[in-house]
């Protein structure tokens, strides 16, 4: 059995609470009202334990992070970017991104060491994309590592209604492939080393989660009416001193009911307000769209919607599962399924051409997301300017399962924390400077979560 180079720290799952809340002034004062405060409450570090904290500026739009994943790599000869005086030049695969070349960085040569070391060519190199962790090859012990998007969700997700959005197109598959569960190939977001975050592929359900279901508010009221009645019938049976406690409960219910009633004109206290208060798209139909491009577009629209309404600031989207059986017949002149027919094309020129088209199709989806975000003005900058959008696959040459150079594009300005329009080529750098986890550390920094180390890296990505 191979031994992971670096074990993920949170192998033990223990209940977590929001420590920061435990330390809020109000709670602290309340505790002081009791006889004792927990002994370490006074021992708060005056500054962040991990050095300088980069966080959102009040009054400015918050930073958003999204990762759009496509499976099975790219046609290696056709994925390239070159710096040139008038802006980067792109190879055929990246062509759809040409209009946005000044809004993005092409990252070359980053990789996860644990993927390269893993003998399982697909599933051993996929679910760890965003964690850099070792993928357990033991069928009875599905185990990878918490991914950076879920680290963000757990640390800063409480600022929004949804800690994160985890979206996809193809359903989670349960069959075995190469002796491993296809659960691995179906999930890029893991909330713990042993637990993938449930991926939503139904646009309607994602919409309800983002916008809220109108029925939900009505239902809340009904439920509150019911428990209000419970409380009222309990009240006479209580001692006087306990009635005081119950009255707090009753008052809380009334407060929520009042809030529901005036939900329409809800106001925020913060300086910045989302540019959208209500959804600007209709609720999608209950079924999954039959046609893949429609499905992808809808899912990407939902990311835009969630960001605009500030319902979440963290999203991941799998355009397809690893080993995808997605049939690309919807593209002109393309036949067959992505994985065996097109990725492993046996160097047949006709099928190579089709594979290139699927690559370009994936890139075009990302370009669409950039277009949408760039159209949205959030004051003196666009939504794209305040976002960090990672577009990537876990393999470079899909045919050869090449994991030592992941195709990656980082778009957006990250609220002024990234200078886009550059090619960042790490291929000639020493291995320690090429770790994808360094990129994740740098991205998490910019999202306001500074960790001393993550996955196989304890250094930030140079030059970002």
């Amino acid at each position, binding site marked *: 059995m191979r031994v992971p180079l670096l074990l993920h720290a949170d192998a033990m799952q*223990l*209940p977590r609470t929001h420590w920061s809340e435990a330390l809020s002034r109000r709670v602290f004062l309340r505790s002081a009202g009791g*006889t004792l405060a927990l002994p370490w409450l006074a*021992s708060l570090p005056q500054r962040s334990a991990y050095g300088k904290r980069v966080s959102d500026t009040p009054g400015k739009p918050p930073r958003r992070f999204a990762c759009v994943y496509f499976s099975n790599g790219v046609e290696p000869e056709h994925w390239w970017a070159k710096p040139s005086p008038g802006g980067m030049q792109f190879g055929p695969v990246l062509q759809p991104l040409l209009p946005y070349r000044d809004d993005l960085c092409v990252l070359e040569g980053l990789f996860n060491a644990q993927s390269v070391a893993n003998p399982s060519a697909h599933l051993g190199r996929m679910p760890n994309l965003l964690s850099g962790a070792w993928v357990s090859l033991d069928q009875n012990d599905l*185990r990878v590592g918490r991914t950076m998007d879920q680290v963000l969700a757990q640390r800063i997700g409480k600022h929004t209604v949804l800690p994160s959005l985890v979206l996809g197109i193809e359903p989670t598959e349960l*069959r075995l*492939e190469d002796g491993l569960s296809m659960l691995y190939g179906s999930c890029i977001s893991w909330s713990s080393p042993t637990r993938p975050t449930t991926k939503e592929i139904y646009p309607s359900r994602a919409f309800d989660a983002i916008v809220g279901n109108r029925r939900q508010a009505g239902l809340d009221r009904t439920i*509150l009416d019911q428990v209000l009645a*419970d409380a009222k019938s309990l009240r006479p049976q209580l001692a006087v001193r306990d009635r005081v406690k119950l009255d707090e409960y009753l008052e809380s219910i009334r407060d929520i009911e009042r809030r529901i009633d005036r939900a329409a004109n809800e106001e925020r206290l913060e300086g910045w307000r989302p540019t959208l208060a209500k959804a600007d798209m209709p609720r999608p139909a209950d079924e999954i769209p039959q046609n893949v491009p429609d499905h992808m577009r809808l899912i990407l629209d939902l990311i835009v919607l969630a960001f605009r309404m500030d319902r979440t600031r963290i999203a991941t989207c799998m355009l397809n599962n690893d080993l995808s059986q997605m049939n690309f017949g919807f593209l002109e002149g393309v036949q067959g399924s992505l994985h065996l027919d097109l990725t492993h094309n046996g160097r047949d020129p006709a099928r190579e051409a089709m594979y290139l088209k699927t690559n370009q199709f994936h890139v075009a989806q990302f370009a669409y997301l950039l277009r949408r975000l760039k159209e949205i003005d959030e004051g003196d900058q666009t939504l794209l300017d305040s976002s960090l959008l990672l577009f990537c696959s876990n393999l470079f040459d899909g045919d050869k399962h090449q994991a030592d150079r992941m195709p990656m594009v980082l778009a957006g300005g990250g609220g002024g924390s990234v200078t886009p329009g550059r090619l960042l080529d790490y291929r000639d750098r020493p291995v320690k400077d090429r770790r994808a986890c360094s990129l994740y550390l740098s991205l998490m920094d910019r999202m306001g979560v500074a960790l001393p180390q993550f996955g196989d890296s304890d250094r930030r990505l140079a030059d970002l």
Partner: protein
Amino acid sequence: MIRLSSHQPPRGATLAGLVLLFVVHTAVRADETPKTPDPIGTLLQRFCFDCHSGDSPEGGLSLQTLITRDSFARDFRGWRKVADQLRSRRMPPRDAAQPAAADRKRLSEWVQQRLQQEVARHAGDPGRIVMRRLTSAEYDYTIRDLTGLRLDVHRGFISDAVGGAGFTNSGGVQFIQDATLQRYLDAARQVADHAVIGSGPLAFHRDPGNTGFELSAITRIQSIYRNHGFRTAAGEGGEPFGLERYPKVFYAAWLFSHRNALGLGAADYSKLATAEGLDPPFLKYIHQLLQQRDLGFPTSEIARVWQQLPAPPVAAGATAQQAFCTQIQERCQQLAERVWHWQNRFGANADAKEEAPVLRADLFRVTRAQRFEMNINWPPKTTTANLILTVESALPDQRPDALVIWKNPRVQFRVADLREQPFHPLREVVTADGVNRLRFGKHHRRGKITKDDFTTLGTQPVHFTIPIPKGAGSARLLVDAELDVDRGADCIIRCSITQREETDQGKSISALLANPDSPAFQAWKEGVLQFARLLPQVSQREAAPSDRDPIPKPFDGTYNNPQRNAFHIRIKYARDDQFLVERMLDAATRHRLDRAWIDLRTSFGYHDAWLRMLSEVFEFSLGDRRMKDLNRQWLEQLPDEARGYLVPLHLEYQADRRALQSAREGHLKDVLQFATRAWRRPLTQNEATRLRSFYESLRTQKRFDHTAAVRSLLTRILVSPAFLYRAERVTADPSSAPLSDWELASRLSYLFWSSLPDDALREDAAGRRLQHPKVLVRHARRMLKDPKATRFATEFFGQWFGFYRFDQYRGVDTSRFPEWSETIQSAMYQEAISLCTHIVRGNRPPAELLFADYTFLNRPLASHYGVPFPKPTNAGPQRASTTLLRRFDDMHRFHRGGLLRLGAVLTVTSAPLRTSPVRRGDWVLRQVLGESVPPPPADAGSIAADDVPVDGLSVRQRLAAHRRDVACVNCHARIDPFGFALENYDSLGRWRDRYRDGKPIETAGKLRDGTSIADATALHSYLRSKQSQFHRTLAAKLLGYALGRPETIGDTALLEQMVTLLADGAGLAELAESIVTSRQFRYHAGTAPASR
């Protein structure tokens, strides 16, 4: 300036002992409380009021207020101090006027006497316990026990505050506001989203929503398959399971046949099967099958061998009989291996390597001629590929005289650049030796073959070698084998080519050859198919077909074929478990399996996906029709073949819908049962009616479907005050009254498990047996031994000693200490919990908490502490040693063991950059010795945050300077020596000999009473001498935790009793007994004005 009393707090045990001395004097009846005699008031005024009166009395104690209020019950803490100061002559201060000896005695006796009167009068008073809400930990545990899931929905809650005796479970500090309630609502909705509402009873699954429903169904199916069935392989990389069932069932069948001779008497199928871990129907089936007479070959062979198993020897001794049975077991093992072997031989046809061998008539294709297409691979640097060609008979005990013609054998080498390479005749690429052995061009009989062909006769294996040309990466061998028409018409043979080199793939390829028209073959085939039916090697297929499993007809199952891919994505599941269902499962399990399948099919558009795919295969027009729109008329106009698939599918669809429909009433009952558990008491008739009508109104008025309505009902139950609050109903008795059985059950379960009562408690509550102290004691003992008592260790000891939620602690500066990691933090947290859990569940003497010479470590923590960690003795999984903790004894050698040496405790009592002797000393004083320390005055100043001397002064020197300040010395003289004794532990709990700047650690200190404490060992010895004080602290903390309120004067006797028990060596179980049987625990204060 001289400070007074509160800087010299009473030591609990001493004081209590003092109080006891005076019990004899307290003959005064409660209602005859004498008025304060003037002389007392005068004395107090004269000697005490100077300092202890007014707005800011010395030590926060105003004797003027105390004497005016005249309530010894309420002010018992203040009066105790007074008594203590008078007795020890610490007050009035030496430089003040002193009372005459007689006056001092009178005053002292009066205070003692009044205190005693109140102790006696209030003994056992329940006290004011404010209604408690579930703490966020209790909420989590309760949800865990209700649903069986760790959902962590409490994460969004606002953190608990601490009150009462220092715990979060005190009602007085539990506030609720709309944001809190909103989170309860969200959490309840999340829990409800995990409900599985299908064709079976209400259950919960770890994944929420519709996806969770689907996953719950597949999980249930897979677990039934795994626990009851067997499968040799499941596609590429699939894992076999249940293969031990055949040897066991053959053996059990033998036992059954000879049950009388073996003295098993009345043993029936059920008993024998259960003993062997088998399903009774399976044993019955196999036993009857093996007796059958008219079986065809090869089943007949299996039955024959089994029947020939010898009977047990008559009148053998137990040992001899045992040995004999072991022999039979071995023979049954061999017999089962024969079953597997034959199955493989018959089943594995050319290119079916990765399929689980399931023989079905439609998959059973045997021809006279077969093309072999074999990949030959070799490890790097290999120069030759060695192959073996074999011809064997598929009929045992027969040596066929079969002649096989091998036509046009040819080899293609592949090179790295993938250019297409030509085929060479095998004759040209084998070694000269190989040419001779294969006899190219020479027919074994008189027939004609080309110079590149060869023939084989009989069952001789032929070895041949192919030299590997330079640059070739792999090769492909193609050959057409054909059984001769004349020689071998009645043979059934297996031809195979095997490569001797170990390679990743394509090691062997084989095929069965026979003349399909021959009567011999027909008889053989029939027998083989019967064998496959009766003794299959796979009792069911995977519910989600793996990559190499066949998918059902009419779809094309060729690997990576679009139809196959579409099936995996759209239909996803296939049921093929007839043998398991018919021959193995008992009725109840079958019923569960059927329900799981119904749930799986109805969890998504399974039937609609079938419908759509069938319409694509048979090209019939579907329009917008979905399964629900189909009717008989429409089905009848379909082409026959399509209808053949659709009609049963439609029937299944309708049956599934009906099953869901009829489960609904059951769900409602389950929800009401859920409410009685969640609300921790039976529902009233009215409540049950209201819950039902809420469901009805959602269905009718809001037009919710059943699932949504049930989820809403669950949500509503979990936001009710009956769930969130531990309400104890007030009774008619104005002073106090016994709690109801249900209220007692909750008190017990929240005390020991931080959660709702389990079934055993509920049963005794329903039977009204909890009013008996004996029953309470039995439960307390049981609960403390239960694994759930870990929660008590976490909640009670964690909060008391300050390691509560240490896993979330963020007080370490990681830029200074980069070695600090979540792994170490988590291990330290577990170390602390493990120590306390060990004391609790093992009922160890509580002093062991302080003095244990063992601790609990895993590898990272051991290495952090510098404790050698033994190498793993067996090659277990790597992570076991990195996360799981195990006990290490004799740890004093490594300066570990006990509370004071716990990493978690030493870390939380440090500052981010350095140790804090003050904080550690304060911890010892408060938490271990139970003494109170006033907070530092506002102008106390502070000590540098780092241990690098800023102005040439170390922390110790600064503290020494601080102590020279008379305002500070009172407290710091009590605190600092304890803290300095622990200076050898750095701020991450590691042992050290020097500070970072290389200066040696100084640990010695002197308490104000003159006791020297040299170091940590001396501190432990000192604490041993103060053990009774620790016991007093434990008793008070435990009672406070149990009742959720601070100590009252009425608790004095109970606490004394507990301290006495501890002195006699009692464990937590005995302490718990005295608490749960106490009046405080079993009674509830009434509505009357506070009795204290």
